[in-house]
């Protein structure tokens, strides 16, 4: 490839795809960027050439062949029907679209690299899960419905493609839930609910990826071309109750069936989509090991889970925090000792306090 590279990106009608395409178009070493989607993107796509094509039919093969595409970034595995319409359409887009795209790539001699944005939803969420999933682990229970199943199938096709075209560097990025001020996803719309229903008696561990880091990791993957499957997530974890306290969002614990019912009641309003796999996630949580991301892929997210949440929180109107203010006012009347003995005191000094409290 004498000059720069020619990249084809699917799924640019969505914000994440569009902004990534723009970002990649201005990256060094990249000559041309083609954005493919069924509907045109709503925002500015900069230097990206938009190709209106449906990846579900073979037209995509012609685009790849004609434009001599050498890198394909597949981002159109979608988690919500959203603009696509119904669940049926979504599944078709995800599964059939991926099949067609991979078939086209297999035919095209020019393709040297494939980057697929997948999701950690592939691991599912259940009470039998290990605390941290590494890339070689399988979900404890094979997903039977929805997005999780789509992801599993898409990954299956990608692995098949990698076997048939060993000369193509295939990078499969299993990204944790993407979060950010602009992001619209099942998790962010859940967190934007005025009162957040939580599953009674469960406190899931959450791991998120900031949208900025998603863009960076995709670009990193395109530029480095490290083949393999990688979990992508910000450092550290938060539990849901803690995250909600940090966001100062009011929450109400409900039994899991009630949360499910509420989810289906909310679906038509498009306010939130508490799909079964999101509900499982909000019950049991999930953690993924990001060792390979750091060591093999050589990528380090700028935002930790905590920071990503904090950044997300700045766009929300805080609705709680009253108790904290009261305690703060009370504490301000007392001598300022807590700063000196913050963590150490927690470790040894203050047993008597805890004892009296208990």
């Amino acid at each position: 490839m004498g000059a720069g590279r020619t990249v084809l990106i699917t799924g640019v009608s969505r914000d994440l795809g569009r902004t990534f395409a723009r970002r990649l178009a201005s990256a060094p070493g990249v000559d041309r960027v083609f954005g493919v989607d069924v509907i045109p993107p709503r925002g500015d796509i900069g230097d990206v050439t938009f190709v209106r094509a449906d990846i579900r039919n073979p037209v995509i093969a012609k685009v790849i062949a004609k434009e001599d595409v050498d890198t394909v970034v597949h981002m159109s595995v979608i988690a919500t029907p959203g603009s696509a319409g119904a669940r049926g359409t979504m599944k078709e887009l995800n599964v059939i679209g991926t099949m067609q795209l991979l078939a086209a790539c297999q035919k095209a001699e020019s393709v040297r690299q494939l980057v697929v944005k997948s999701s950690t939803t592939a691991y599912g969420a259940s009470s039998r899960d290990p605390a941290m999933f590494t890339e070689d682990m399988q979900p404890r229970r094979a997903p039977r419905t929805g997005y999780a199943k789509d992801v599993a199938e898409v990954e299956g096709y990608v692995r098949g493609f990698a076997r048939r075209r060993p000369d193509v560097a295939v990078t499969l990025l299993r990204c944790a839930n993407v979060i950010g001020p602009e992001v619209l996803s099942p998790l962010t719309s859940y967190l934007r609910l005025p009162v957040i229903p939580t599953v009674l008696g469960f406190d899931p561990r959450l791991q998120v990826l900031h949208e900025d880091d998603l863009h960076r990791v995709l670009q990193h993957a395109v530029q480095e071309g490290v083949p393999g499957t990688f979990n992508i997530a910000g450092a550290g974890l938060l539990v849901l109750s803690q995250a909600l306290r940090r966001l100062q969002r009011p929450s109400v614990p409900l039994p899991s069936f009630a949360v499910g019912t509420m989810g289906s009641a909310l679906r038509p309003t498009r306010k939130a989509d508490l799909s079964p796999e999101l509900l499982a996630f909000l019950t049991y949580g999930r953690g993924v090991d990001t060792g390979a991301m750091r060591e093999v892929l050589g990528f380090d997210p700028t935002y930790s889970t905590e920071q990503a949440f904090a950044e997300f929180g700045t766009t929300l109107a805080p609705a709680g925090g009253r108790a904290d203010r009261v305690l703060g006012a009370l504490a301000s009347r007392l001598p300022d000792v807590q700063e000196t003995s913050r963590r150490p005191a927690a470790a040894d000094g203050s047993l008597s306090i805890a004892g009296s409290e208990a």
Partner: protein
Amino acid sequence: MGDAEIIPIGTGGRPGRGTGKKPSSAARGLAPNAKRKSSPPPEEVPPAGEEYVAPAPADDEEAPVSSAPVSSEQPEQPEQPEQPEQPEQPEQPGVVPESPRVSVHEPHGIPAGDWLAAFQHASRELFGDQWEPQLARFLAFLRRRISGDYSVDEYGFDAEITEKFFMAALRPIARKWFRIEIRGAENIPAEGGALVVSNHSGTIPVDGLMTMVSIHDATGRYLRPLGADLVFRLPLVGSVARKGGATLACSEDAERMLRGGELVGVWPEGFKGIGKPYSDRYKLQRFGRGGFVSAAMRTGVPIIPLSLVGAEEIYPLVGNIPSLARLLGVPYIPITPFFPLLGPLGLVPLPSKWLLEFGEPIRTDEYDDGAADDPMLVFNVTDQVRETIQHTLYSLLMERGSVFG
């Protein structure tokens, strides 16, 4: 102290007390003041106030009348004839002027100053003389909890709440109720990964909790228990377990924790051990499939056998309702001599005396690489651990005089 003596003055009307010749010292002392303060007659004090006003001008004759209400103060008088003057001086400015003031401004309720004083007193009681910094620290703790400003590790372990709440709540039970005695705590390495393997008993895994507290108190390390998936399926139990440092008993998590240098606890008997009938007490059940041994071998950490005597007797399991258990999806529904019979009271564990003995660490780092995949070797080591625990149990039982000793 002035208050305590003044209060009876207003109890008026009761007969008795006083010689009948002279006014009591209290009456003498009060008279001039009562005259002074008589101008604003308060609503509640009037009965007392008026009585004082009346006797005051007419000195001697009426004295007995006025002395009557002060009856309860009399006993002090004969003993300490000199004292009346001293308490009276502080009393009058202290109480008499205050009572009308208070009743005018705030007829009901306690003045803010009293609240503050009570609060300070309570704080001092609770936190000792250093109450201000202690309270500030406590408030800081509360704020951290409320604002979510604490951290959990990748297994969901929340060290702060474990230390300050779970441990603090369990410690009295460990010390006072079960009177736990620990032996061989020096066998627990001060740092680095190690696997504590213990017998399991007691119908409800109280032994796990008590082991956690005991190890923390003896060594300062947190024991990270591995729990069955049932634990994580149950609401509340699962989230509390994760906050307390537990994780799922699977080889991935066990190896990950051991590699991370944690002190991991396993109870390989599982439900077979904890739910065995009372007649089988202290008979070790099968040690699973020896997965804990392969985990230790792969990570090269020592195995520390722990023999725990006492937990068998806390809820003597005499029966089971298998059909109901199947219906609820739990391994067993326990029947103890007290449990369904006495209702919630039956949930109080019997206060047996507990002994915890940590045995010599069994090293696993000398085996070669493939050892963890050699089933024969794994079974042998599993048996070795099991035998060690069983023998220690027997010797501890011999040593223990009686169950509740």
